[in-house]
């Protein structure tokens, strides 16, 4: 059983602090949900756990079964058992879904135990069917031209194939219609057991109708400001965040305020324009 421990985590992007002391312990077999208004640092937390290149950790620690995660490269984290279903996964033209996932699976295996093509195809086809995805999926390029819902399902497909110890699903429910939500929910639930530790990032209680969670956390201003059980999510679903902000004495729950955000986005846009040249 795996344990992910996050202690006093601080992280910044382009010199701006986004995470301001996050504490969280996630054990295998548990499911936690993180909620919180837009721009409060939820995706940033997920990205930092996975080792996204644009963020810098300035303080605190992340360990997986006692190993220092922050010292690992992104691929080492993945091979150690971490998985992140991204809020907006990248598109990679020219790389087919099946080549990608086969390479990813083999990356975890020793040379003498590499997957046979036959075994791989059988497992892949099964997962595609269970997620009710299109049959042409293996030959399509990774996420290129995928609809929002297709991208989300493709993230779960990868999770099914890679069998992580700790999985973070960032807004896996956004962009899914009701039927798709049910399918994704059932597939994730079927992976649960004594071992898998799940961290769901979501805005809506509805997701928990399909994937049961025992622990609920609320993020504001780059911190977890309140933790509880499902009743906490119920209350937010009914009443929104105002009561909590009032209790906590928070005016603006976002990490960055508007002017700050504009500056960062501005410099980013210029940089992109320069890179394009």
């Amino acid at each position: 059983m795996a344990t992910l421990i996050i202690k006093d985590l601080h992280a910044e992007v382009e010199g701006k602090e986004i995470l301001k002391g996050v504490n969280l312990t996630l054990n295998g077999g548990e499911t936690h949900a993180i909620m919180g208004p837009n721009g409060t640092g939820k995706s940033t937390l997920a990205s930092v756990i996975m080792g996204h290149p644009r963020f810098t950790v300035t303080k605190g620690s992340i360990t997986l079964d006692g190993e220092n995660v922050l010292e690992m490269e992104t691929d080492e984290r993945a091979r150690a058992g971490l998985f992140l279903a991204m809020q907006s996964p990248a598109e990679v033209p020219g790389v087919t879904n099946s080549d990608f996932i086969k390479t990813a699976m083999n990356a975890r295996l020793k040379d003498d135990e590499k997957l046979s093509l036959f075994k791989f195809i059988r497992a892949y086809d099964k997962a595609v069917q269970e997620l009710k995805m299109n049959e042409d999926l293996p030959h399509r390029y990774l996420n290129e031209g995928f609809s929002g819902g297709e991208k989300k399902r493709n993230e779960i497909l990868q999770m099914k194939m890679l069998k992580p110890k700790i999985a973070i699903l960032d807004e896996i429910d956004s962009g899914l219609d009701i039927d798709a939500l049910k399918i994704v929910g059932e597939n994730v639930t079927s992976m649960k057991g004594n071992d898998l530790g799940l961290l769901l990032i979501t805005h809506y209680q509805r997701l928990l109708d399909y994937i049961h969670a025992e622990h609920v956390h609320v993020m504001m201003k780059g911190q977890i400001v309140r933790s509880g059980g499902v009743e906490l999510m119920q209350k937010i679903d009914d009443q929104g965040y105002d009561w909590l902000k009032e209790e906590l004495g928070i005016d603006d729950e976002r990490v960055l305020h508007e002017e700050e955000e504009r500056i960062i986005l501005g410099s980013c846009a210029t940089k992109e324009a320069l890179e394009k040249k």
Partner: protein
Amino acid sequence: MNLTRIPKTLQPFINTLPNVIIIEQGKIIHSQLSESFEKLTFHDHVIGLPTMPTEELEQMGKLNQSLMNSTLTLELSTSARLQEPLYVIYISLDKDLTQRTTLHLNASSQLTVIEYLYAANDATMHLFSDIKLSEFAQLNHIAINHITSSNALTVNRLYDIKEGAQLDQANVLFSNALTHQANHVLLNGRAAHATSKTIGIANKTQEMIIKTVIEHYAEQSEGYIEHYGIASDQSTLMFEGVGKIHKNMRRSIAKQKNKGVVIGANARLDANPLLLIDEYDVEAGHGAAIGRIDELQLYYLMSRGLSLPEAERLIINGFLAPFSAMIESEPLKETLQTLLNEKL
């Protein structure tokens, strides 16, 4: 087939090709074509040059004419539509090669030609092709260069595309030579259509210059240029794409895309997309994305456990995908994949 003159590296796929003409140093040493190819005539006699649109091409043509030591002429009859691809293999082992290829598709005919040039000697090579598509003809033309020596390769092609005819042209440059490729397409009839794609992979101290010109001499003509490239070590790779729409050629489309990856600090990759447009009622555009491999793509692949080199390899191999997709032969696709990985 007598394979004694065919280099070992080619044997795995040459054996499997269904319709093939093999030319070694100016002589057709082997040809095997199914019955459906009876509408295609070919021979290795010399024929004259057409008028050239530019001074530069004129000179190249003359030079080629005077040094020419290998020729191939192909002609497809009116309305003959061949579904199976034709493979033409040029092999150059000992001497300089100055190749002249002429291809004429008569009206409403259709053909896929895959040319494969293999050269292993230290000689220079000059290829000149003169290709004509009559009204409503359709040509898929794929040219692969596989040159192991580091000498010079010059390729010039002139395409004359008539009304309603359609050209899909692709070039895969796996050459170690100093390479200059220039494709010049003339859209000479209403609704003529041309797509020209090239992928160049330059390494060591290699210099590769890839030029594609599409000139619109007719209304509603469409030209699309795509350049892909990878430059590593101390190499230089240059893309020059020119879309030129002449006056009154209304409702024409000229577009181009340049995409390149530079590996290491000492390689150079430049794209100079150019649009010369003398008419208002057209659609035109160009884009260039040159730089390192996209950081977020790498992060995504690595987040699934691929190491950095594996992730890079997969993304770079992806550049070849639109080219592989044009080729039916699986063994040939595999050969290309191997060549790409050898060069990186």
